[in-house]
């Protein structure tokens, strides 16, 4: 006993001694022009060959041996900076890196971020926001989600929509984090546009596998989106005018460098421009007034205040809504004979109203504190809400005493509301360990659908009736810890544990989820990585498979509908070619349990208390491999991605069988998926970009045989739609003006006018034939012919937009 204690003491002393001569260099890495903190920037000591990467708030901490050190700070798109000195004490170095969008390829320093060859993270991709902005899109609207759909492992679902299907997962299995806060609805206009205004975004990272322990709550992906803090040097901004919408972005210091703001707003104006036409048609139809329209808007705002060198305060706000409205007012006159024989004239007004309003609201209050040069704390209080409100009303008012006046309004409300408190820590005790730990608590309030009837019958007291479900409260708690550590010069691993619990209606679910991600460095440019993740999810989205409807409803797990979970293993090779191009090949296998699917014939329009009866629980699996070659620096940037994948489902639980309890392919099971994205800067005045995508078609369910009494469907998803392919092109013309820069963007969506399938269905064609009979009479004959029809949404669509930046 004494011996072992002595041994432990010696080991402890030697451990402490081994680090006794070490000092910590810490600080923040920012962009010199804007003052924006740089996420994932590298600080690397060329002497000890030790390095660290800045966290989400630009903070880094590097503990290295005392003596001569030569630190190299680098970030993609920035000039590297070297600082050499004699390290004799703990030192704070705040670094400002010079931005240079197009670097000479020679001076670029290797990507040492966690996502590349050197890091332990796999299954994750980060795309520079400038590259996302350069990708040509539908109607010229920059779209983050649609850009990410071009990455391997991500399927877009239906053409033109912002569907997001990652590695065989469903659309509700993705965690969209805006400044660390979940956003529930990420699309506008039924899914044609995403809610993220690219002007407000600083950094985007998509995790498809190998999830670090700090993330959870969804099975298939995490999309971590960070908003710009705001330029702390000068007021900057841009104004963009496009076919669909216009937007404005303004950022800069507020009073001093310590406080910055960033505000971005976007609104469509189809409704405003179409009002005169609608008014005209209203008059033609005899309405006194007719107003109708649709618009969506986004408002992003962020305030950042530096309280001290150690404390920073952030206030983020996002609000986005889709609004559909219709108001018809009809006025008419009526006459009747009075008791004294006189003619009375009366006026009546009939009014109909429809109002649909759905969207997100998100508020984040965050406090960063550098507790010590090794410990960073992040405290966050958040409020997020998704709501869908429908109002349909009808009123009648007349001064004729014999007429009954009334006013009826039916309101349907549903949504989800979260209040959360998060506490996260980054701890870097030495260069070999980067520890993250924390806890999150979320109070969910689900509103599965409440109808309110407001009836005003004449002058009587109004009668309000509430029909439907009460709010459902749920408590979700997360505790996590992860350590990203080196084992010698060649091995690096990220080990983590994520514990989550969910309490809803007396039902308590919890799970302990191990996460492992490891890297073996074969040489400085080539590494092998492997990862395992176990994930649990406690909420489901009741949704149409095809399109994103505002009626899509988030519901919690229940006693019958248990949490979904998944196991994912992945492995891959990562190669860095001369610090210019990153290659990766990843293979994965993912099994998913307790997935939900609508039962045969279940209607999406009937989302009410018995939704549990409409769904079946089952399992699924997905496997495949992904290839990605990505170039993010130089005059030519972009990527080539290829995915081979297979995704299947099995719903064979007694009473919940789908497809006779046999295996069937998932709707978005696509065998091949290729995407090529290229941007090239010809000069300061002109740059061009193009994307080409090709993928196997989605599955459809067709009744291929008809018989007396019905249509025979041999299998769910039994017919493969035609392949999908599309070429988009875009060109930007820049010109330096007196007070800023103007950019004309011309885009062509679907440049070779490929008619891609949106929907296929059986239909009929009528064949007209001109015949002449034996008597010389000529006439037409009509024959109906059954055919398979394809509906395509988007032909070639050119668009133009104008941006003025100052």
């Amino acid at each position, binding site marked *: 006993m004494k011996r072992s204690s002595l041994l432990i003491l010696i080991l402890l002393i030697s451990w402490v001694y081994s680090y006794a001569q070490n000092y910590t260099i810490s600080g923040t890495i920012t962009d010199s022009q804007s003052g924006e903190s740089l996420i994932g920037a590298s600080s690397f000591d060329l002497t000890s060959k030790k390095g660290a990467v800045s966290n989400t708030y630009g903070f880094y901490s590097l503990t290295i041996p005392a003596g001569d050190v030569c630190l190299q700070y680098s970030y993609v798109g920035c000039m590297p900076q070297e600082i050499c000195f004699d390290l004799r004490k703990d030192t704070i170095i705040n670094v400002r890196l010079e931005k240079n969008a197009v670097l000479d390829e020679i001076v670029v320093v290797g990507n040492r971020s966690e996502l590349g060859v050197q890091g332990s993270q796999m299954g994750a991709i980060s795309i520079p926001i400038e590259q996302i902005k350069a990708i040509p899109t539908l109607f010229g609207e920059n779209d983050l989600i649609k850009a990410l759909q071009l990455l391997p492992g991500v399927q877009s679902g239906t053409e033109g929509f912002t569907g997001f299907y990652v590695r065989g997962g469903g659309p509700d299995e993705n965690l969209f984090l805006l400044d660390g806060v979940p956003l529930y609805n990420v699309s506008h206009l039924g899914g044609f546009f995403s809610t993220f205004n690219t002007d407000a975004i600083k950094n985007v990272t998509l995790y498809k596998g190998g999830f670090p322990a700090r993330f959870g709550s969804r099975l298939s992906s995490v999309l971590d989106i960070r908003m710009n803090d705001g330029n702390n040097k000068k007021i900057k901004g841009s104004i963009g005018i496009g*076919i669909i919408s216009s937007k404005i972005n303004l950022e800069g210091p507020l009073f001093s460098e310590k406080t910055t703001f960033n505000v971005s707003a976007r609104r469509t104006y*189809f409704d405003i*421009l*179409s009002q*005169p*036409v609608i008014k005209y048609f209203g008059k033609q139809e005899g309405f006194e007034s007719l107003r109708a329209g649709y618009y969506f808007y986004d408002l992003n705002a962020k305030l950042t205040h530096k309280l001290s060198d150690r404390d920073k305060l952030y206030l983020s706000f996002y609000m986005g809504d889709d609004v559909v409205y219709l108001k018809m007012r009809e006025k008419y006159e009526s006459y009747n004979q009075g008791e004294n024989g006189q003619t009375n004239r009366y006026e009546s007004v009939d009014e109909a109203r429809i109002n649909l309003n759905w969207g997100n609201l998100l508020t984040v209050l965050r406090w960063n504190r550098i507790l010590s040069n090794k410990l960073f704390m992040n405290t966050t209080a958040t409020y997020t809400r998704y709501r869908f409100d429908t109002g349909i009303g009808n009123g009648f008012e007349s001064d004729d005493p014999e007429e009954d006046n009334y006013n009826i309004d039916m309101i349907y409300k549903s949504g989800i509301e979260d209040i959360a408190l998060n506490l996260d820590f980054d701890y870097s005790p030495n260069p070999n360990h980067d520890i993250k730990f924390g806890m999150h608590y979320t109070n969910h309030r689900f509103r599965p659908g409440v109808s309110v009837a407001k009836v005003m019958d004449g002058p009587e007291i109004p009668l309000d009736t509430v029909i439907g479900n009460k709010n459902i409260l749920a408590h979700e708690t997360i505790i996590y810890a992860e350590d990203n550590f080196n084992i010698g010069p060649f091995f690096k691993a990220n080990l983590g544990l994520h514990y989550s619990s969910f309490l809803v209606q007396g039902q308590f679910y919890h799970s302990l989820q191990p996460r492992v991600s490891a890297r073996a460095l074969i040489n400085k440019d080539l590494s092998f990585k492997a990862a395992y993740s176990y994930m649990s999810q406690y909420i489901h989205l009741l949704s*149409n*498979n095809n399109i994103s409807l505002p009626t899509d409803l988030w519901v919690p797990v229940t006693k019958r509908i248990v949490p979904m979970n998944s196991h994912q293993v992945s492995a891959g090779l990562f190669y860095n070619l001369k610090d210019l191009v990153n290659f990766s090949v990843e293979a994965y296998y993912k099994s998913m349990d307790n997935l939900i699917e*609508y*039962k*045969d*014939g*279940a*209607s*999406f*329009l*009937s989302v009410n208390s018995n939704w549990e*009866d*409409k769904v079946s629980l089952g399992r699924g699996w997905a496997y495949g491999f992904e290839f990605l070659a990505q170039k993010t620096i130089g005059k030519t940037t972009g990527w080539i991605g290829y995915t081979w994948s297979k995704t299947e489902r099995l719903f064979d639980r007694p*009473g919940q069988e789908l*497809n*006779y309890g046999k295996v069937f392919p998932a709707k978005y099971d696509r065998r091949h998926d290729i995407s090529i994205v290229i941007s090239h800067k010809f000069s300061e005045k002109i740059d061009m970009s193009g994307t080409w995508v090709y993928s196997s078609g989605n599955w459809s*369910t*067709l*009744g*291929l*045989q*008809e*018989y*007396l*009494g*019905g*249509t*025979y*469907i*041999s*299998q*769910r998803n*039994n*017919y*493969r739609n*035609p392949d999908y392919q599309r070429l988009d092109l875009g060109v930007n013309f820049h010109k330096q003006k007196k007070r800023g820069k103007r950019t004309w963007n011309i885009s062509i969506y679907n440049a070779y006018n490929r*008619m891609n399938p949106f929907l*296929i269905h*059986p*239909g009929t*064609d009528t064949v007209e034939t001109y015949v002449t009979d034996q008597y010389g009479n000529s006439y037409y004959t009509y024959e*109906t*012919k*059954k*055919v*398979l*029809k*394809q*509906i*395509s*949404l*988007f*032909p070639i*669509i050119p668009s133009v937009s104008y941006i003025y930046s100052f």
Partner: protein
Amino acid sequence: MKHPYTIYILCILASLLFSCEKDLEFNGKETKSLLVLNSFVCAGEPISVNLSKSRFFLDNNEDFEYINDADIKLWKEDEIVSSFTFISNDGDYLNNYIPKEGETLRITASSPGLDPVEATVQLSSPPTILKVDTINHSKLYYWTFEEEYYPDYVEGDLSFDMTVHIKDPRGVANYYRIFPYLIVTYKDGNVFTSEILDIDSNDPVLSNTNNSFFDSEENEGYFNFSDELFDGKEYPLKLSWRLWMSSTIYHYEEIISLEAVVELQELSKEYYLYEISREAASRAEEGGGLFSEPVQIFSNINGGIGIFASYAKTTYNISIELPEKSDANPPIYY
């Protein structure tokens, strides 16, 4: 520009209108017609079968073809029990074998040019109705006329609340169908049976069976349900029904007795799955199919399509007292 919005709207509309529908060449494999066999077997009754042929969904022929030249055999424990005899040009066949409760029967059918089919079913046993409690809300009138050529007739609203006490066997999944009907007996000996379409229930066992949004209030005069919520128990199943009746609708003769009958059928699992999937398909079609999942109508015919299922029935008769005859003027109903 004088009217920028007009140009703008035209551009948007043009792009949407050009997005189009086109004919697509079918590139699948499942184009061959299949044999369709339908047969519902009841213990104690001869077995009839209907055979037809499916058609590829792009086949322009509007008619379905009945199979009148098939070789159909009934099997029991790998031995042929008997063959079916062709009885009509509508693809009907009959067998003289009388099946018994609990028997497992296999059917095979083949026809030139089509793949042979086969299916198996176990015959159901009759369910148990312990008793039926009723509350009669009917308002019936029995009119008598002095003129000879007018028969005395019954007219009015038949309305009943019923509690049907079912005894369910423990440990096995049972599937049922319940439906009331009316038996009307006339003075000249004629007997007519009337379906009752207007039946309703708030019973959780029955309300659980309807997944429809569009027509949740409608039914087809019966309810299919399972014993999921009352396995192995005695269950008081509640339902109510209404029927507007006029004895002269069926037969121009004086009525002498009225009976309400509750028929409870025990369905084989195949029958139940077939029924609920068929109903779901019908509802999905009514709703346009756009907002609902496609429905696979259940089939247990290997190599073909259709259903080979069994049922057994139990009935419970309730005599309905006829009102006193009256020669007062009949009320006017709307």
